[in-house]
């Protein structure tokens, strides 16, 4: 009886989690191996200078506890992350919550600008022949320009106008996030088939009525798919915007200052904080998507 229930009645969350957990464990194991291997030369070098002989156990212990390792071990990054999130007052300059918030606010602002711009351009493309033929090549071109080259210019131009802080970063985030929204919405607004459009035509519906009652609701599945890509892109854009011109706050600035001073644990902690932030944002949009589409009968 217990055997049967153990085999057939596994908690679905657990069943979904098991493969993920396995992969995670494998990654951690490989990471530890890599940490030992990459930090070993330095540890050996130090031992040679001090004329001490290292046992293998000593070697491994030391490679995993270095102050400035080439590759910090997972538990060091976890400790750094914990220290940054829970070990500080959140108003402290060392707090990852504080830096995360600075990055998040610019990300959300950029995401909002990018989404509005993407939707507006898509509406224009679907309703206007001239825009249909002219906008897309430019939009594609805008994405082929390396953002790392554009970001410093945007920061400098805005700074010359006296604008620093959130807005320039948000513009860079919007630059990256409008594109997936544009592509998704053009596709989404064009999903209604000929029959649906003929029906609207037979009722003598105006273009605005066709848009609000048919095109826009039909496009929502595409919009949500794009939004998930767009918010992740907005976060990348914000972090890139924090790298140049000596920004002092934000996860990007944490990455940069960590690399200046060889604080690899700090770099990795900031990196993970950014990854976790991105995952949470994408999950939030995913939840909103499920809720909306289920209510609309589209899921």
């Amino acid at each position, binding site marked *: 009886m217990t055997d049967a229930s153990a085999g057939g009645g596994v908690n679905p969350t657990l069943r979904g989690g098991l493969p993920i957990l396995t992969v995670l464990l494998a990654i951690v194991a490989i990471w530890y191996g890599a940490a030992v291997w990459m930090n070993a030369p330095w540890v050996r070098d130090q031992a040679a200078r001090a004329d001490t002989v290292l046992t293998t156990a000593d070697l491994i212990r030391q490679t995993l506890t270095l102050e400035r390792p080439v590759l910090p071990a997972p538990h060091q990054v976890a400790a750094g992350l914990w220290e940054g999130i829970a070990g500080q007052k959140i108003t402290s300059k060392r707090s990852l919550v504080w830096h995360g918030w600075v990055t998040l606010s610019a990300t959300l602002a950029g995401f909002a600008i990018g989404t509005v711009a993407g939707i507006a351009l898509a509406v224009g493309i679907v309703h206007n022949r001239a825009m249909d033929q002219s906008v897309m090549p430019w939009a594609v071109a805008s994405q082929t320009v390396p953002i790392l080259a554009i970001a410093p210019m945007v920061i400098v131009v805005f700074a010359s106008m006296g604008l620093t802080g959130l807005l320039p970063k948000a513009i860079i985030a919007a630059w990256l996030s409008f594109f997936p929204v544009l592509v998704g919405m053009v596709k989404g607004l064009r999903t209604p088939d000929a*029959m*649906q459009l*003929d*029906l*609207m*035509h*037979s*009722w*003598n*519906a105006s273009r605005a*009525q066709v848009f609000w*009652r*048919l095109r826009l*609701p039909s496009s929502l599945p595409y919009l949500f798919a794009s939004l998930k890509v767009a918010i992740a892109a907005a976060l990348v854009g914000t972090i890139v915007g924090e790298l140049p011109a000596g920004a002092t706050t934000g996860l990007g600035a944490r990455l940069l200052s960590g690399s200046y001073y060889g604080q690899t644990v700090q770099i990795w902690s900031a990196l993970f904080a950014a990854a976790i932030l991105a995952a949470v944002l994408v999950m939030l949009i995913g939840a909103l998507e499920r809720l909306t589409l289920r*209510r*609309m*009968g*589209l899921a």
Partner: protein
Amino acid sequence: MSAIEARDVSLTFPTADGPVHALKDVSLTINQGDFVSFIGPSGCGKTTFLRTIAALETPTAGTLAVAGMTPDQARRKRAYGYVFQAPGLYPWRTIAGNISLPLEIMGFSRADRTQRTQRVLDLVDLTGFGGKYPWQLSGGMQQRASIARALAFDADILLMDEPFGALDEIVRDRLNEALLDLWKKTGKTIGFVTHSIPEAVYLSTKIVVMSPRPGRITRVIDSPLPRDRPLEIRDTPEFIALAQQVREGLREGHSYD
């Protein structure tokens, strides 16, 4: 007064392989209150002709009058309701919401919309299903809802393009009966495209047989059957003789190519 009057209507599509004559010199008079079926093999232009009446296609030659106006004027005046083969209901709207969609677009008041929606739901025998979503209804019920939607704004003409083509025989029989009932109650002029001979004979007061390449009318048969038609009428000699005529008409069309 004739509801629809076609004089030498032609419609030619230019294609890479030269022009395609979808319709060639089609002349037809449909009287008010007629139930007219268009039957023929695919490519005979029956759907195209229905679409020209609805101003969804524009003839390249000839004249076409719908309710005494050009088809496009008639469309703007909402002179007809159109039913497609697929119900085309919005999944995010209830059945009542779907039926009131054209009413919203046409600017009916909220009270008027509710009252009209209720009335046409009763008419297609979907009373009590207004609050359901399309996926909660069977295919036949969805198609009835789409007919209700076409009836909601009281157009005098109902154009139906193979509305029951995707449904099984049993459901189709029931819906045919219901459609006749509805036609008697409302006195509408109905244009009905089908490729089923029994369906055409059972429903129509006038059967228009068409043939392809070029799409044209080969025969117009006025039905001698009474307007009151129980399903059993299909076993009478009159019905069988009429079906025979339609079949001959179809064969005639085919002998051209």
